[in-house]
């Protein structure tokens, strides 16, 4: 490097060659014409670690070996998991069907019964048929002549006994001149003559003996009637018992053969035959109810009959139905289910209600299954974020997995809030392999703050969003592209298009040596390119279509970016791309807005004065700077002190600011630029404004890599392009970032034409030389820098500041003494 060179006119030998700015895909290694010739890959390559973890998790049928698939969205977690699950599930046994039936002893707690796959539906149909038969057989039995006769006999016996006693009393009363009269309160006894009650004066005219006799007789009849009335309820009870026995007998006779046929059909399923026995008992026990229903449905003329009938309709035969909640009749293998709305009720099921006379009622037939029921015996995939957003869903999922049983509970139950009458169905044993998919942050948060998470999700399948780029992996990537094209029913892509996709994959990864495997973004680009190809009537998607899609994506999202460039061009945002200034440098930052990230230059200025060795970060002072940015600034003080003030105080106070920055600043990627601004200020050496610099710096002055290098370079390039490329403009980046370069074609072309340059530097000295055109300077044996070098000038300025500080200190002490 030379002293006295023009600032910002660095030796172009430090500039990177165009081929270092963009790593092309070697199409000669792509040995196919179009993707139609390739075996499509089902999922992204480079996920061996995650796939191995999933295989372990799916294979381990032990408690807690559930899977959390972590990784950024769009990496194909879901499709890989579903693919592996389906592969595995196909060879596994089909799990059982489950039904809920009425618990006749306690309808509040319906019973769950397990049946071999397919037989749940058969039983449901059998019970429906049985009920159809019952609807005919039971009324027919009660209408039979045999039943009518026997019922008539029972009623007759009761009536005869009743009439006999009443008749005897009536006859006695009549014979004794006493009448039994119905009154509003019951009955009355009074002396009568010719069917009419005696008037008081008639009674008074009777002889005293007759009056006495009548009163005694009325007292006796009264006693007799009271005794009869006492007996009536008991007789009625006896009659009802006799009728009930008859009804039971009739019902058993009518339904016996029907139930027996079912018992024989399900003889191998003890739970079912036991339930059928209970059904039979209940039918016999509730014969009266069927008769009442029948009378009500027949329209017996009673005003309340329709109401009574409606109330019973649901309660009679329907209680023998079967609620089939899990039906595997048409399934083979174990179920694989994905619940995309994992609410509490969608997970563990729910109990619905129906309105009856203004009241919400429910029964076993209104139990609805959840995803855990349907996936029982198989696999369930849930999105962790959606799951956690649903009230109670996460806690109930954990409870279910811990207890290994599905218990249906509603949110009011869980909150112990009063709700409409509900049920407590018998829990169903649960054997579900649960796979959560989510981002890494959620995984780490759950691991840290939920002690049960680690016990229940022991397998972490960590999906990478990038894969290493090599000749082999590029071919695998081509297979992945072929897979997406096949799955999405897109036109084949030709070799050039695949190569462009691979290059774009590297750009998405922000690394020339890696490829992005965020399948969603790749697939979206392919869909759009396919659209353009079809518009043009091409049967194969070409590289130009891919490029058109990339350009269109950028253009659609570029409103803010272009607005920023406009404002820079108009001088509203003050960025120079020519000339040189002391203590002022073009830094670079990246703005991420939605789906697009773009770089933009920011003017960074430094000012120095006599002070106590601190570097003031103005952003930090006004709370616009983040902690990493502040760390970067503080490192600068460490560098300055370590290099220039080891033997004397660092009597410097430097302030740094991002000019025209009104939002937050975070990250340390501007720390090299900030250091250069301070050094320029101290040395009094102007920095070329035709250059921008990015990179972080450590206390040794070494350049460290930063993110978004491509966007940053392109950001300054766009500013220079608008101002006019003059061949002197360029960007200084850390040498460690060279491997990340996948720059836009127009940037590469400009570099190739010598109209723009990208310089890679290893440290601050090299950066200062490029930015200022002045030699940085190397210390001699005594540790002194050449006086005209940047470092020499800095050293001299710091020494002068230290001397002035010492003079001030002496002056102050003298002043104190005076």
């Amino acid at each position, binding site marked *: 490097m030379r002293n006295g060179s023009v600032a910002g006119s660095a030796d172009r030998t430090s500039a990177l060659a165009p081929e270092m700015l963009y790593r092309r895909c070697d199409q000669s290694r792509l040995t196919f014409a179009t993707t139609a010739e390739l075996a499509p890959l089902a999922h992204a390559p480079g996920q061996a670690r995650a796939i191995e973890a999933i295989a372990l998790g799916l294979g381990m049928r032990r408690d807690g070996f559930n899977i959390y698939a972590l990784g950024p969205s769009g990496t194909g977690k879901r499709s890989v998991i579903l693919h592996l699950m389906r592969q595995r599930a196909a060879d596994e046994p089909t799990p059982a069907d489950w039904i809920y039936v009425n618990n006749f002893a306690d309808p509040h707690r319906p019973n769950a019964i397990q049946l071999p796959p397919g037989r749940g539906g058969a039983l449901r149909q059998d019970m429906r048929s049985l009920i159809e038969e019952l609807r005919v057989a039971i009324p027919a039995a009660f209408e039979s002549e045999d039943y009518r006769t026997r019922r008539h006999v029972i009623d007759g016996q009761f009536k005869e006994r009743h009439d006999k006693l*009443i008749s005897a009393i009536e006859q006695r009363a009549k014979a004794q001149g006493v009448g039994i009269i*119905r*009154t509003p309160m019951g*009955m009355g006894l009074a002396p009568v003559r010719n069917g009419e009650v005696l008037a008081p004066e008639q009674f008074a005219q009777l002889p005293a003996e007759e*009056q006495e006799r009548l009163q005694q007789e009325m007292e006796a009849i009264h006693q007799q009637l009271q005794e009869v009335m006492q007996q009536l309820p008991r007789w009625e009870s006896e009659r009802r018992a006799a009728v009930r026995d008859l009804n039971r007998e009739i019902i058993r006779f009518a339904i016996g053969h029907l139930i027996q046929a079912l018992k024989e059909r399900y003889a191998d399923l003890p739970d079912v035959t036991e339930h059928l026995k209970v059904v039979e008992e209940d039918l016999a026990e509730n014969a009266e109810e069927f008769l009442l229903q029948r009378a009500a449905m027949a329209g017996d003329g*009673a005003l309340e009959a329709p109401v009574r009938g409606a109330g019973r309709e649901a309660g009679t035969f329907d209680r023998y139905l079967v609620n089939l909640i899990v039906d595997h009749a048409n399934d083979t293998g174990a179920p694989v289910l994905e619940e995309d709305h994992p609410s509490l009720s969608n997970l563990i099921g729910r109990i619905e209600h129906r309105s009856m006379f203004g009241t919400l009622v429910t029964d076993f037939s209104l139990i609805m299954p959840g995803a855990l029921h349907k996936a029982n015996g198989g696999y369930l995939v849930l999105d962790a974020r959606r799951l956690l957003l649903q009230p109670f869903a996460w806690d109930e999922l954990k409870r279910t997995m811990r207890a290994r049983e599905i218990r249906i509970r509603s949110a009011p139950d869980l909150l112990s809030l009063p709700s409409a009458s509900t049920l407590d169905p018998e829990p169903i044993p649960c054997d579900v392999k649960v796979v959560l998919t989510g981002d890494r942050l959620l995984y780490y948060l759950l691991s840290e703050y939920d002690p049960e998470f680690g016990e229940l999700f022991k397998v972490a399948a960590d999906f990478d969003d990038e894969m290493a780029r090599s000749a082999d992996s590029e071919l695998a990537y081509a297979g992945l592209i072929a897979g997406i094209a096949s799955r999405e029913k897109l036109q084949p892509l030709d070799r050039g298009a695949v190569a462009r996709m691979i290059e774009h994959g590297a750009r998405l990864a922000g690394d020339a040596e890696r490829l992005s495997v965020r399948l969603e973004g790749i697939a979206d680009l392919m869909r759009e390119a396919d659209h353009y190809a079809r518009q043009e009537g091409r049967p194969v998607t070409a590289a130009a279509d891919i490029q058109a899609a990339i350009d269109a994506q950028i253009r659609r999202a570029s409103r803010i970016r272009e607005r920023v460039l406009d404002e820079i061009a108009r001088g509203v945002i003050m960025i120079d791309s020519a000339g040189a200034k002391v203590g002022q440098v073009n830094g670079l930052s990246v703005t991420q807005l939605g789906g697009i990230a773009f770089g933009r230059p920011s003017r960074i200025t430094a000012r120095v004065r006599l002070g106590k060795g601190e570097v003031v970060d103005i952003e930090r002072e006004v709370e616009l700077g983040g902690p990493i940015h502040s760390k970067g600034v503080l490192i600068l003080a460490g560098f300055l002190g370590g290099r220039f003030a080891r033997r004397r105080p660092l009597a410097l106070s430097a302030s740094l600011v991002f000019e025209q920055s009104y939002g937050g600043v975070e990250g340390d990627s501007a720390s090299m630029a900030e250091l250069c601004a301070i050094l320029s200020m101290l040395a009094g050496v102007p920095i070329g404004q035709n250059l921008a610099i990015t990179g972080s710096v450590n206390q040794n002055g070494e350049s460290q890599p930063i993110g978004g290098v491509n966007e940053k370079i392109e950001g300054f390039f766009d500013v220079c392009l608008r101002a006019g490329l003059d061949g002197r403009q360029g960007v200084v980046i850390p040498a460690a970032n060279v491997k990340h370069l996948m720059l836009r074609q127009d940037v590469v072309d400009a570099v190739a034409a010598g109209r723009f340059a990208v310089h890679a530097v290893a440290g601050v000295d090299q950066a200062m030389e490029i930015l200022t055109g002045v030699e940085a300077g190397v210390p001699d044996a005594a540790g002194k820098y050449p006086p005209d070098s940047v470092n020499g000038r800095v050293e001299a300025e710091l020494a002068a500041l230290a001397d002035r500080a010492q003079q001030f200190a002496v002056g102050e002490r003298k002043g104190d003494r005076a």
Partner: protein
Amino acid sequence: MSPPAGPRRGEDGIDRLVVALDLAAQDMAEIGMAADLAARFGAALEGIFIEDANLFRLAALPVARQIAMGPPTAGSMFDPAQLESDLRALARRAEDAVSIAAKRAGVRWSFRAVRGAVPSAVIAAVASRDLLVLAAPTRARPALGSLGPLLCRAALEAERSFALLSRPAGLQRPLVVLGTDARLAIAALGVASQLLAGGGRTLDIALAAGTVDGIEAAATAWLRERGIEPRIRRVAAATVAQIQQAALSAGNDALILAADLSCLAAGGAESLAAGSPCPVIVVR
């Protein structure tokens, strides 16, 4: 096919159903059935609330005893003012029931309270073309102390048609039991033909052995004229038990009896109604 024609109004028809409501018969079911019957006959419905004169004498008599349902107690005295109040309340309730049932069935209705000696006051209120509707004694409503049997006998003597309604029934498959009087037989057939369900074309008729041949022939001819086929059932004798058995075995839901049947005398009608699975209508 049009429904069978019944007796023409103004000749043999029923103009009005008079529901006799005494203290024992406040059952909405019977009033509802009466209203439905009135609609079937195209007749009006009248509720008569009977305030038996005996009740007031009873209340005034110091030695009268009151028997209430419940645990055995010493007989208590009546309070005439309370009796009046209770009767007024019961009459209001009965009127409400008649009103509701009539509106539901879509028939004209009226209501009145009749105070006087039973049965004469009631029978006097029932015209010859009325059908007196009474609640038949049942298990839940024993005959003891009820005015029903009294009215029943009085209606027979006064040559009035009457219906004894007991348990709920559809009144769509009647069994007609004919006596020896041809006029009464035709009247009974006329009532029965109006009850046939949905324009049914077959009517069950029970004839006791020894019935005059002319009755069967006349009944058959009368029915066939109206497109109805008689289904004759022979019973050994037209006794209460035989008639009940005939109705029971055929599943009939109404018994239509010609008033000249000898079994109706001496409480036969009430026995028949109490033991039958369906209402009984005695046609005069």
